[in-house]
């Protein structure tokens, strides 16, 4: 066998391992969610197909799973939206306007993103309690936005700084205001970057756990990750079928986003990380 054939076989084996490694927990989750019993493997019982688990988590009001889903989507969408708007404004100022401390602002944002979440959550809890904001959307949206802003800023600065200055100089000569240049010139050209930031912010907010755990106590603002983590059966036994069905429903939109926008998510992550 030539070196090339050996190489091709190695690559194939690697890809098979890589795919199996990444995907087997999802397949397991899907199988259990569609099975009448979670222990059919060890009991040597045959797999019996059912949709009862999905039915239960999507319709049983006492489980509040649809509430968690709605909270998660609204909170993540709002956080992603604010991140895009606020980071675009700041990134425009940093890349296009001459003001003292531009670079320090960028490195300040980087330094801030290094703080561990646990160092914020205790104080935030007292703060939100005093405001009476426990179990409200704003108690999560505002910290999420602040927490994701540094990464968003870095990604957008990297995109904006690649846009030729001549474009906005021309617009400036035509009498456009800064705001018009940002909305009509920069943002359309940097659309892939804006999409990356939106997707990443959405995913980060959707997956966040510690703030949501500490700042919510019931279904009014509790998000899906916390809901699934604290999922309890009514009769003491862990209802694995229900939990896996809820997990499938939660991961499905994220999996679809990843499959459709893989390129944008990867681009955003590498811009944010590598430039940092």
């Amino acid at each position: 066998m030539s070196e090339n054939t050996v190489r091709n076989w190695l690559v194939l084996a690697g890809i098979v391992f890589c795919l199996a490694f990444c995907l087997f927990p999802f397949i397991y989750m899907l199988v259990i969610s569609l099975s009448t019993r979670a222990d059919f493997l060890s009991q040597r019982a045959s797999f019996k197909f059912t949709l009862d688990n999905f039915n239960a988590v999507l319709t049983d009001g006492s489980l509040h799973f649809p509430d968690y889903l709605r909270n998660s989507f609204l909170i993540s969408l709002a956080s992603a939206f604010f991140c895009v708007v606020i980071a675009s404004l700041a990134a425009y100022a940093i890349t296009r306007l001459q003001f003292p401390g531009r670079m320090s602002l960028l490195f300040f944002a980087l330094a801030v993103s290094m703080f561990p979440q646990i160092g914020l959550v205790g104080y935030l809890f007292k703060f939100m309690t005093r405001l009476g904001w426990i179990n409200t959307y704003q108690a999560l949206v505002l910290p999420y936005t602040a927490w994701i802003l540094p990464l968003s800023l870095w990604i957008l600065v990297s995109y904006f700084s690649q846009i030729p200055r001549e474009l906005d100089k021309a617009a400036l000569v035509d009498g456009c205001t800064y705001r018009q240049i940002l909305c009509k010139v920069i943002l359309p050209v940097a659309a892939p970057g804006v999409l990356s930031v939106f997707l990443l912010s959405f995913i980060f907010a959707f997956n966040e756990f510690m703030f949501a755990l500490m700042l919510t106590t019931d279904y009014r603002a509790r998000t899906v990750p916390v809901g699934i983590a604290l999922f309890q059966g009514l009769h003491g036994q862990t209802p694995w079928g229900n939990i896996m069905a809820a997990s499938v429903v939660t991961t499905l939109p994220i999996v679809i986003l990843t499959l459709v926008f893989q390129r944008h998510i990867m681009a955003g992550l590498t811009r944010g990380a590598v430039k940092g």
Partner: protein
Amino acid sequence: MSDITDKEIKAACVFISPLIVLIFLFILVPVLGTLLNSMFQDVAFLDKQFVFLRNFRQLFADSGFRQALKFTLLFVLVSVPIEIVLGMAFAMLMNTHIPLRGLLRACVLIPWAIPAAVSGRIWELIYNYSYGLANFIFTELGITTEPVNWLGTSLGAFIAVVIADVWKTTPFAAIILLAGLQAIPVELLNQARVDRANFLQVFYKVVLPLMKPIIIVALLFRTIDGLRVFDLIYVLSGGGPGGATTSISHYAYKYFLGGDFGYGSAVSVILFMIAFLLSVFYVKAGRFMTGQV
């Protein structure tokens, strides 16, 4: 001319103020509050009292904290190198010219993209003593005759959380490293091939040296992230058995939950300091702060 600069500065202030205000209110103030609080006795239903460094002195005598510290450092020390090596292998696979490469990349991304709490639940079921997938495979293949008590023993739980974390975060390392691989000039690799260097020679002599800065970036990100690990372990093992897999974040969280904000803050401050010192070490090792944006 100065008129334009004034206008620019004014506009800049308006444009950056939302960012500054949000970061100030929801990150800086809480961080400073935590720093301050770490020097107070701040327990629910008791009067707040300044105790200076007493919380920290107490920490060093606290066996629960020492256990959490030891676990967290060991966890980072074991899982991060595995993630970087495996991530490098995945990055090289994702960089080969194969059909459906986009689909492969998306599949690798998925474990990173889903909530850690959900992966924690899936792995909790996989490790289930009586009917989990891990014990089913182990006993079917005859690797062990008895089921393994994954989450009930210290060593089992440690291995369990490391494997789950490797699964969850290797994709992130792979994506960062892939960006580094793509930045290597193709001519350089072709030249090496013309010189009849074999695969391993190319890897050690060309790829690795060029990748050093980006490997350090990946190490830095993974180390800082690993030090503050919380959600995956909180869900998967609950920090048990007997606190064997309780991370520093988790330990601080328990105090916050119990209403002891002074002591919890002190634990968080120690975590800050460890993360900060390690970042400085990496930045020095990489010397990649050359100021280019």
